[in-house]
């Protein structure tokens, strides 16, 4: 039960010390973290009925011609809240929604944001459609159960895909999109606004919320240096408050600590289930009770192949 105690302590610490003011807990509340860059910090929690799927970060960037939305939250309600939040800031149209990866807490709001206007583009990694296709039934059933919906929500998949780098012009402001090798997932994409040196990292960065491995642990660690090297002075994580350049350190410690512990277990020929029961979560992270044992499982089934090639 110590784990639960830690999680609550951690959430309390976050709420007290960070940007999680009462105002920003509102499902449509945004902070202008840099000129024309608006960010909503979702709750650090699993999606469920009471939070309406508002459990991840999203934001939007306003150019001279139009607005790009980055991630869409975990329900059609969050998607609607995003459009309303844009309306409160500008009359310019939303011309793009960029999805950092296909997990439902970032993707499900797209159904409300999409089709809002002719010329609207929804953009993601070229590997997102296959990844989401393999999980559609699971995600729909999960969302229905967690959010207490009458029917399983439709999942809209972005129609435009990026492989490598791409630029979107919002009028006087260009966003740089970039896909990554397998890390948090096999289809991570980041959005960088060079004019304000703001990076939307998606779930390549977790702050406070236990990092979740649904891709490749070694790849994630290997690419963290390149992510930090993009030159961002401000990074919007997929979960948790906006951070400066030092905000990657805690996640790197979690991931490298996990990697080292799992490698030791493999050297000792410890079977998977015993490794899961033995490798404890470090203190300071929220939701370890949901994600840490799963991370050990993922790390183990990845690293047991490490010396093969």
């Amino acid at each position, binding site marked *: 039960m110590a784990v639960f105690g830690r999680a609550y302590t951690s959430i309390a610490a976050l709420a007290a010390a960070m940007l999680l003011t009462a105002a920003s807990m509102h499902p449509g509340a945004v902070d202008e973290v840099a000129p024309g860059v608006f960010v909503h910090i979702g709750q650090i929690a699993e999606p469920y009925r009471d939070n309406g799927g508002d459990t991840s970060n999203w934001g939007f960037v306003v150019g001279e011609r139009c607005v790009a939305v980055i991630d869409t939250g975990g329900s059609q309600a969050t998607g609607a809240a995003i459009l309303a939040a844009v309306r409160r800031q500008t009359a310019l149209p939303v011309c793009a929604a960029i999805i950092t990866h296909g997990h439902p807490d970032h993707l499900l709001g797209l159904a409300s944001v999409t089709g809002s206007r002719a010329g609207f583009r929804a953009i993601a990694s070229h590997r997102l459609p296959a990844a989401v296709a393999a999980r559609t039934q699971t995600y729909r059933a999960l969302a229905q159960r967690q959010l207490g919906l009458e029917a399983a929500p439709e999942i809209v998949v972005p129609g435009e895909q990026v492989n490598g780098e791409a630029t979107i012009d919002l009028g006087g402001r260009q966003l740089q999109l970039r896909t990554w090798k397998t890390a948090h997932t096999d289809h991570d994409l980041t959005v960088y606004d060079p004019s304000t040196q703001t990076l939307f990292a998606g779930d390549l960065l977790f702050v406070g919320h236990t990092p979740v491995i649904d891709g490749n642990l070694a790849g994630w660690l290997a690419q963290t240096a390149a992510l930090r090297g993009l030159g961002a002075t401000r990074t919007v994580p997929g979960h948790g408050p906006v951070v400066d350049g030092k905000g990657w350190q805690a996640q790197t410690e979690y991931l490298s*600590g996990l990697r080292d512990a799992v490698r030791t277990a493999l050297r000792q020929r410890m079977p*998977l289930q015993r490794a899961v029961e033995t490798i404890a979560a470090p203190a300071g992270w929220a939701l370890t009770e949901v994600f840490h044992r799963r991370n050990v499982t993922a790390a183990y089934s990845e690293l047991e192949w490490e010396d093969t090639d």
Partner: protein
Amino acid sequence: MQTRTRPLKLSLSGLVTAIAVALSLLLPTAALSADEPSPDTEQWAGIRQFLFADRPIADNAGDVVEIDAPFRAEDAAVVPIGLKAKSDQTPGRYIRKMWLLVDKNPTPIAASFELTPESGRADIETRIRLEEYTWVRVVAETSDGQLHMARKFVRAAGGCSAPAGKDMEAALARLGKVKFRLEGEPQQGKPTLAQIMVSHPNNSGMQMDQVTRLFVPPHYVRHVEVAYGGKVIMSADVDFSMSENPNLRFYFLPSNGSGELTAKVVDSKDLVFTSTLNLSKTGS
């Protein structure tokens, strides 16, 4: 922000953790068993009829066979399962077949294993996919023709965990690599643990590409056979209920600490992967 983290430690006193976990699971037993439904599911009735017709099955046969499964599937794509015989395989009495059954999976017969006295112990560990709350069962057929069942209820994963593989391109790129090794020092006449790992995406073929509206074709491991000294000691018919990169831990009876273990893996496209383990070379 600063969150303070401690490096993860692999505690030597893992036992203490295990006991603590066990205790914490025991305390709220009343609440937990409340969400454990009846094992007499519709799916089980169908499987039972299909595989065993009217043959009697001893339920809760803990004196013959047990099943190890986690309380919750932490990762829906990789759920460790152990089938454990209560006694060694002897020519006089042994388990000749074991079925691993998952009531709520799209294909509930996850695996069937054929074993011999030379298997040494009828213990198999493997990993399966599992997305719903479900009963997981083992049915063992002993050499006298009797059937014995053990079962465990497993809760679905939290988070956005899904049964699909995590890196589809990587899985395909490494397709067919086999890791085959001993987990213990082989001793004559003593059951010795070995492990076979097959790098394979193990696709179910039930996934639709949202853009093309085409189904991804199924491609999975369907048969694994291990022989020792030319005699088959374990053969398994499996399907995509097995996790990506199918993994089996099993026993065999070495003689003189020598001889060859050979493994043959066949997938749904009839691709064959083989691997050989020479015992005299592994002993040191």
